[in-house]
């Protein structure tokens, strides 16, 4: 039965496809029907088939269409219209009727089904934003009301330079308004920013932004003018971000197994970015670490590195090329520098277990040794946390340049294939009652050029050890 229905559906495809792959397609359906028994598997099978039909039919015909255009372009005579037919046969009336009915059903059903999830997630705030947006420009026709349908996907693929139309601008602004209201850490500020975005929209301030990046920069500026939050941003990413990599709220899914495998092999090849571990003259331990890698992967390497420096009289952490990493590793490394659990401030998360270092580390003898941390303007993010917390705890002397200045991080929310927002969702509480390093960087205790930092640290450590 299934096979007969599908054989009929196959008639909808262009003849070159039917002739080439009709049998194979039927065979595939037979295979699936045989292997997937039971009501739900069968239902899924047919949903797959209908979805497949909705996606692949237009593609097959557009391929045939482009062949037609190519053929006619080759042979067109000046001023004389000509017609070419690629199909060797006319479709039967029955097939046309069936095709029409099924296509309409499928086209009507799938956007509705797909948008259910989407709309449930963000229904309240989105509808609000949409109505205001529409009111602002009643003359404007919104060609696609459903953001997930295939046509709009295709339209979106060309949002590069100079291609942004009013409908796309409006959609991005509406999504930004909805995301702000739903996720931003401060509700009042979110409302004010949303109002500002819509006011700008109404005044036509955004009309000049005809490419994605210009619009993203403009909207970011409009939001920051109100909130002064440098972490909040709306970004345009030229490479498309497929929806499959994001959850229903537009947040990124965890890295795929392939991503993880790639990261794992990179870590294996680079010794977990522990670039250099050595003992300098006067028994000064030196550790050059270029990131704070995934603890679950690199804990043995990190523990071995610290163990090999266990008998040093002083220790220098070289973070001049360290661009950050995972908070768990930052805290893990810091644990060696204390003989009791120490509060460990992490501006990206509210208080969790990670907020206390796991000190003392059994067998560790570094807890009371002088510590020097080398910094540069490239020292970034997680590495800055290491510097800032050790400085605030007066546990290390920082030597080098003021660090890069990246403290908070927003949670990413995808708007569509090219637009997304980084939104700070929680407000960190700084136990030191002063500003952290966001935007300003961590000031070193001893300011020298990055390339002179190691020499300076060695000298300082030596004279300190000699005084003992």
């Amino acid at each position, binding site marked *: 039965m299934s096979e007969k229905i599908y054989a009929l559906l196959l008639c909808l495809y262009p003849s070159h496809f039917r002739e080439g*792959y009709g049998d194979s*397609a039927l065979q595939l359906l037979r295979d699936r029907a045989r292997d997937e028994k039971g009501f739900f598997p069968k239902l899924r099978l047919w949903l*797959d088939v209908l979805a497949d039909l909705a996606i692949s039919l237009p593609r097959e015909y557009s391929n045939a269409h482009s*062949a037609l255009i190519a053929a006619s372009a080759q042979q067109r005579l000046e001023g004389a219209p000509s017609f070419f037919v690629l199909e060797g046969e006319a479709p039967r009336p029955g097939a046309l009727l069936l095709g029409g009915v099924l296509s309409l059903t499928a086209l009507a059903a799938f956007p509705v089904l797909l948008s259910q999830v989407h709309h449930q997630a963000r229904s309240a705030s989105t509808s609000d934003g949409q109505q205001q947006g529409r009111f602002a420009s009643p003359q404007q026709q919104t060609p696609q009301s459903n953001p997930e349908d295939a046509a709009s996907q295709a339209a979106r693929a060309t949002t590069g330079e100079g291609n942004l139309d009013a409908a796309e601008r409006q959609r991005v602004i509406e999504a930004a308004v909805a995301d702000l209201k739903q996720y931003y850490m401060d509700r009042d500020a979110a409302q004010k920013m949303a109002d500002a975005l819509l006011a700008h929209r109404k005044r036509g301030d955004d009309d000049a932004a005809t490419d994605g990046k210009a619009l993203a920069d403009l909207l970011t500026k409009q939001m920051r003018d109100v909130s002064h939050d440098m972490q909040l941003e709306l970004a345009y990413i030229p490479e498309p971000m497929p929806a499959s990599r994001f959850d229903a709220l537009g947040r990124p899914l965890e890295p795929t197994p392939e991503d993880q495998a790639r990261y794992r092999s990179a870590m294996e090849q680079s010794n977990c970015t522990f670039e250099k571990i050595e003992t300098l003259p006067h028994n000064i331990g030196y550790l050059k670490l270029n990131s*704070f890698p995934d603890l679950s992967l690199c804990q043995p390497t990190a523990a071995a590195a610290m163990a090999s420096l266990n008998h040093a009289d002083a220790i220098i952490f070289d973070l001049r090329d360290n*661009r950050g990493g995972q908070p768990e590793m930052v805290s893990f490394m810091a644990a060696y520098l204390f003989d009791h659990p120490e509060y460990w401030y992490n501006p*990206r998360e509210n208080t969790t277990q990670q907020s206390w270092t796991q000190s003392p580390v059994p067998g560790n003898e570094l807890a009371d040794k002088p510590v020097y941390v080398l910094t540069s303007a490239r020292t970034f993010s997680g590495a800055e946390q290491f510097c800032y917390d050790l400085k605030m705890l007066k546990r290390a002397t920082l030597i080098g340049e003021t660090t890069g200045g990246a403290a908070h991080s927003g949670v*990413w929310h995808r708007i569509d294939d090219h637009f997304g927002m980084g939104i700070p969702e929680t407000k960190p509480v700084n136990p030191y009652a002063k500003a952290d390093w966001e935007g300003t960087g961590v000031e070193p205790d001893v300011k020298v050029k990055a390339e002179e930092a190691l020499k300076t640290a060695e000298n300082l450590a030596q004279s300190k050890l000699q005084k003992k």
Partner: protein
Amino acid sequence: MPKRKLDPLPSAAFQILLALAGEDLHGYAIMRQVAQQTDGRMRLGPGTLYSSIQSLLEEKFIEELDARVDAKLGQDRRRYYRLTSAGRKLARSEAERMADLLRVARARKILRRDYV
């Protein structure tokens, strides 16, 4: 024939190339392999599958082998497909492009729990 749209490479075509990277497979086996390597998120329907196969064949990224029987699936003869060296190269460059993208994503703080 017109040039098919493999630039940019659609994800279905990329998944098919990845599925064929291990061994030669027939259509249904490709479908199952793709489902497996995407944790069931991508189940290629017949239309998408064979339309992608057609495009990949035309651009010589895969080649068709002589039809033979897959003993596990009965007595039907099936068309098998094999990755060409051009196809392998394409898959690799696509994977590298994605790795670059991943680096951008990390730099833009898109991935959760990573500062980068």
